């Protein structure tokens, strides 16, 4: 992984003139955005401005929804070199493996906890079975879930609490050792305590991965963001100055005006 490590602050995602439409209805119109390595980089904006769509454009997940049309360029620094995500020869499966994602509501697969962890290792990474358990354990430890589930790996994932499920999904993404981690309001369906737990975790993970987080909550954005962008209706993206992030009152005023 060492060659893929970037110094904090170098750009690693470059989005230019991105248009996304569903069934002819434009959601993003000409978005420009540059994201630097590390983070977390937080995207905020009113509901309906297309934050989730923008996030999903980065790992081409929009294509899995019916009636989607994408135009423009999304370039990611993968394995040390710039790649056009929408280039014809690129395998979306491999891209998505390297760009992990956690959804708004926990989405464990309807299988056991253990199988949730190992299935992507077997199918997407094609790792030999001997390596599964080590990787899974490491990822579960990273997500701070290991001690809670080590004895119940054969139980259905649906039996976990909401916060545990979300950490399981995080661990599942981590087990594939991605270079990017996209998080779509990862704490939206969690209670306060569980949300704080996940937030702390994300701050730790930002040391190793490039994190892009969509958030609704100003407080959360303030706690998490190292950099922040506001997505406006119609698709302009405005960066929030770093000084503004530090000053709570200034940020509040700024956000009031924007949102």
């Amino acid at each position, binding site marked *: 992984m060492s060659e893929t490590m970037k110094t904090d602050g170098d750009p690693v995602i470059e989005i230019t003139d991105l248009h996304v439409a569903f069934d002819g209805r434009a959601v993003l119109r000409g978005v420009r955005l540059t994201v630097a390595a590390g983070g977390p980089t937080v995207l905020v904006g009113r509901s309906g401005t297309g934050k989730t769509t923008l996030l999903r454009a980065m790992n081409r997940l929009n294509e899995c*929804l019916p009636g989607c049309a994408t135009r423009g360029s999304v370039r990611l620094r993968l394995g040390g070199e710039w790649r056009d995500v929408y280039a014809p020869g*690129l395998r979306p499966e*491999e891209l998505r493996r390297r760009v992990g994602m956690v959804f708004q509501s926990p989405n464990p697969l*309807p299988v056991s906890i253990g199988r949730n962890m190992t299935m992507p290792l077997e199918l997407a990474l*094609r790792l030999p079975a001997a390596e599964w358990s080590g990787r899974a354990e490491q990822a579960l430890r990273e997500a701070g879930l290991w001690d809670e589930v080590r004895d119940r790996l054969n139980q259905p994932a649906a039996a976990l609490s909401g916060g545990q499920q979300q950490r399981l999904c995080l661990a599942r993404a981590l087990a594939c050792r991605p270079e990017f981690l996209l998080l779509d309001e990862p704490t939206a369906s969690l209670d306060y305590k569980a949300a704080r737990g996940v937030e702390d975790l994300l701050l730790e993970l930002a040391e190793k991965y490039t994190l892009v987080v969509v958030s609704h909550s100003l407080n959360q954005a303030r706690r998490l963001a190292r950099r922040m962008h506001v997505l406006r209706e119609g698709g302009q993206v405005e960066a929030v100055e770093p000084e503004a992030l530090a000053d709570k009152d200034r940020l509040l005023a700024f956000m009031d005006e924007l949102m």
Partner: protein
Amino acid sequence: MAGLDANTGRGERIVTALLFGASAVCVLCVAAILGFLAWFCLPLLSWRELSVVLSWRWEPAGGSFGILPMAVGSLLLAGSALLLAWPLGLGLCLFVHGLGPRRLARPLLALVRLMTGVPTVVYGLVAAFLLVPFVRRALSGSGYCWLAAALMLALLALPTIVLVLDGQLRLVEPRLRLTAASLGLTRAQELLRLALPMSARGLRTAGVLGFSRALGDALLPLMISGNAAQLPHSPLDSLRTLTAHIALVVATDSQSAAYSSLFACGLLLFGVSYTVNLGLRRLGSAQGGGATGGMTRLPAGRWLEPLAVALAWLSAVAVPAALAVLLGYLVWRGAPTLGLSLIFGDTPPLDALLRGAPVFDGLWPACLGTLWLVFLSACIAVPLGVASGIHLAEYATGRAGRLAAFCVDLLAGVPSILMGLFGFALILLLRRSFWPQANTCLLLSALCLAMLVLPYLFSATRSCLEGLPRELRLACAALGLSRWQTVSRVLLPVAGQGVLGGVILAIGRVAEDTAVILLTGVVVGAGTPASLTDKFEALPFTIYYLAAEHQTPQELDLAFGAALALLCLTALLFGAARRLRSGMARRWESGRSFT
């Protein structure tokens, strides 16, 4: 680790091609059947011929080939059967969903599922020896009449109606239960004022499917409706349906006008069945999609609730009672004959089993024939149906997908007797063209049966896959799973129950069908099937034959024994499929070892 640049994997491409191929085969099947019907109807395409066929007299000896009495007979019979079955089905559903004691709900539903497994020929046999004499004595006429056939067809269509309605209510009702209860509504009020109006689509679908089932059946009308080619004046009159007509007349000279008029019958039958289906879809889309689309308003009177409760109780008593009488009679007549000699006649069982000694006067060859049929058609239909279902749910887009879906819908509207007619005509055509040795045989029957059950498998697979939440697909995609991995490792195992349900239905249908094999190679005596190109015996046909042609009372008893055996066989198949299903679910959910 696979590189980022590698194009879509070769395996993935092969899978996609295979799935596409399966859909293409479905389309070809439909094209072939329709092509046949149209081709053989061509001679009738002149005003003179058409006016001969579309007239009210059927008398081949006198040169009259009118099929209108049969067309009207079909519609009358199916319509009246639906008129009986639909309210009963609705009542049963209401009973199960809260108008009756909760304790009885599960057993009642289990009973209805059991009914789907009762072979048509068993109904026919019992009706011919129980219902027909009863109608004759209690009312008047010969007993072979519209009324008797309508009663039995209602029983045949009932499970379809109940299961569709039950499925719909299960979708709608849980969302309403707490809300309705918190508003102080009674269970009956909730069901009648909220759940049913929201289930308009299910109510319609149930009606249409029940109608199609009654319209397409050939055997019950053939066995108990009397078959006189006339317009009935009362429910106690004899009538002939299009399906029975095809079965009765297919035996004529294959170059005569009577023969080509059969294909007109087929086309008519197909047309009606398809129009009804199409009408349903139009109605559905006109009223807005979704399970909540089209709120139907029920009358507001207070009498509605007590009426519904009365209907629910009536159906909950009448349907099981009818079934108990029919099956009770079957067991009473059939049970004494059960034994090794029923299966093996006077041949030592071990000889027959191990050394293949020929069995006469026993059901062994027929049992084997039926098992072979089930096995062969499952081999053909299951991969094809499941693959095309997957293709349509997960891969196909745009026009190609719509075409395939349309074709399968068409195929689902083909009554079994028509499938038999197709098989028979196919063989005649093959013999006259490039394969003079072609003959009706086991393989042909299996092929036609496979085509008959293809839509079951297709729809089960497709609807189960499409019913899964989109989040599941997104989650898999986000993890970097390929499309086929997502389908084969996550979606299919989750949808497995439903798919297997389709397989069970299909197998049951193959095991019990008589109309298709009647025209494609089944015979009275053939011994155990030796090759795929041989003629064969099959249990349903043996029952049908013995019911009508028994030379002695003992042979009639054999028919009841055979019916009981067939019932056991279908029950066994259902049971095995059920076990398979639960086993599969267990294995998948626990996952591989994780230590």
